[in-house]
């Protein structure tokens, strides 16, 4: 079965929502092609503002628009939307509980062509630690549309990491309804659970196929809602499968792996093996090369699953 792909699911959805929400305004900081806002701008020029290379100002201008009743969507590279504007987001967006939607594009290893300076690998760690903030990473084109629609129609601060240009369709849009704090179980499984989000989702599905051939039943959970987090799904995964692999396109410090460990550490401690960038800076390179170099390919996920299962077995022995 071949996977369908959609071009610019984010930019298309944004322009579409512009029709339905007259209060929607869009801001850029000189990265319009990356943030896919041309379509919105051409339809709604009076609601589009390009603030130039001044991200801090952009975020606070967005807060001002939001505090005047607008739904303000502002975007840039994920590294800038977190690291560069952290203080503006904390005070003027989150503390003020302003209706601002922060859009991070080309996050972490999805940005291979620009290298370390542009590969935001800390965005989820930073954003999820901010009170009032919600954090979402769609895993495919269907979720991109659904989550954007959700954040635009629900007041309050949100951070949304969106796919780069093209995204697969892995979830059926005709039946899917996004609910924050609710994970999507992509595949059932009883031996181990692979928890993931974003561009790592297809790799986890591929890893589950490989494991299946070895007789290992791997559950795959798409955790697109990073905050609020679906704690009960994580707990169930720990309780029912007894071993977890968390695969994320992010630094392993402070991301979903940490969030999952935080949850089960308090309820049902089981082995958690983390796949992600292991506390180092990025590099230039094509996606395949980066996946190998950073240990984040489907094959690495399979290895991680084996390790988690070993730990689970050792644990079972010691309990006996």
């Amino acid at each position, binding site marked *: 079965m071949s996977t369908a792909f959609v071009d610019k699911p984010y930019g298309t959805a944004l322009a579409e929502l512009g029709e339905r929400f007259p209060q929607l*305004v869009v801001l850029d900081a000189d990265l319009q092609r990356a943030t896919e806002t041309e379509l919105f701008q051409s339809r709604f020029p009076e609601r589009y*503002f390009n603030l*130039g290379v001044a991200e801090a100002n952009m975020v606070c201008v967005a807060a001002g628009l939001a505090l*005047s009743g607008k739904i303000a969507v502002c975007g840039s590279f994920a590294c800038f939307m977190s690291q560069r504007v952290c203080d503006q987001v904390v005070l003027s967006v989150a503390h003020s509980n302003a209706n601002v939607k922060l859009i991070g594009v080309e996050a972490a290893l999805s940005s291979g062509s620009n290298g370390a300076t542009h590969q935001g690998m800390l965005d989820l760690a930073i954003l999820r630690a901010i009170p009032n903030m919600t954090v979402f990473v769609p895993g495919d084109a269907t979720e991109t549309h659904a989550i954007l629609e959700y954040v635009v129609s629900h007041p309050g601060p949100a951070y949304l990491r969106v796919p780069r240009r093209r995204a697969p369709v892995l979830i059926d849009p005709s039946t899917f309804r996004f609910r924050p704090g609710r994970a999507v179980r992509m595949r059932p499984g009883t031996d181990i659970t692979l928890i993931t989000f974003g561009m790592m989702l297809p790799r986890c599905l591929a890893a589950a196929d490989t494991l299946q051939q070895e007789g290992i039943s791997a559950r795959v959970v798409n955790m697109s809602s990073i905050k609020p987090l679906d704690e009960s799904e994580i707990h169930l995964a720990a309780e029912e499968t007894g071993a977890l692999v968390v695969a994320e396109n992010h630094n392993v410090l402070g991301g979903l792996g940490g969030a999952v460990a935080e949850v089960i550490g308090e309820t049902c401690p089981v082995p958690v093996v983390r796949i992600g960038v292991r506390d180092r800076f990025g590099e230039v390179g094509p996606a395949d090369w980066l996946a190998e170099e950073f240990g984040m390919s489907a094959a690495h996920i399979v290895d991680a699953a084996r390790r988690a299962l070993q730990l689970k077995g050792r644990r079972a022995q010691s309990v006996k």
Partner: protein
Amino acid sequence: MADSAIDLRRMSNQIRRDILEMIYLGGGGHPGGSLSSVEILVCLYFSILRLRPDDPGWPERDRLVLSKGHAAPALYAAMARRGYFPVDQLRTFGQPGSALQKHPDMRRLPGVELSAGSLGHGLSVAVGMALADRIDRKDRRVYALISDGESQEGQVWEAAMAASAYGLDRLIAVMDCNRMQVDGFIDDIMPIRPVDAKWRAFGWAVEQVDGHDPYALERAFAAARESDGRPHIILADTVKGKGVSFIENRVEWHSHPLSEEQYHSALAELDANEGAPA
């Protein structure tokens, strides 16, 4: 709206007393930058701003963004005296659970337009508010109170550029130019002169006034309301700690508690200057 019966100088003296009481009872606060902002806030709240204290969220109100959040005591006193909340509530300043936090919290105190405390945000937020008003074709104005020390933050100039690029002539900024910052005099730490030429170069209409003359401020605000396609800034020359001799121009009084003796001595000085207690 403006109440012609209000004596802005007398009210300023009252606000100073309130500020000192808050900082004395609250066990600390920022006396210097609060006292320098008094006439600016009195002029805005009692003469310039279109507002409804009994309906703080009134959609047609003018907006005032206090960007120098450490002047919270001056803001709270002006708001209380204008009728936003009972004057007695000022005594809760800085107490656990109070709506009157050491820096303004818009989610706790209705009428505060923006949570502030980290410097450099307010003018940008005011730009956003002015853009929203333009989209909505509202005829109200947005005011932003910033400070000269704050303008060492690069973001202030990002906002200045944007306001000018969008021709936001319903945005009026006031800079409390008390010439000091936390660590000393601005000229000694990181000079920002020439301030007026910088704003002009960024495309703003600039007016300079005595920031402790509420009537001069009133005239400057009236002039700034003449729309000419440019944002306006009023550079208000002030004295940090104005009105209390042992606080004026003293670096250690940026953030400092008041002892009981200092509190009474400061009040006595204010009374003497006014001639009689209000």
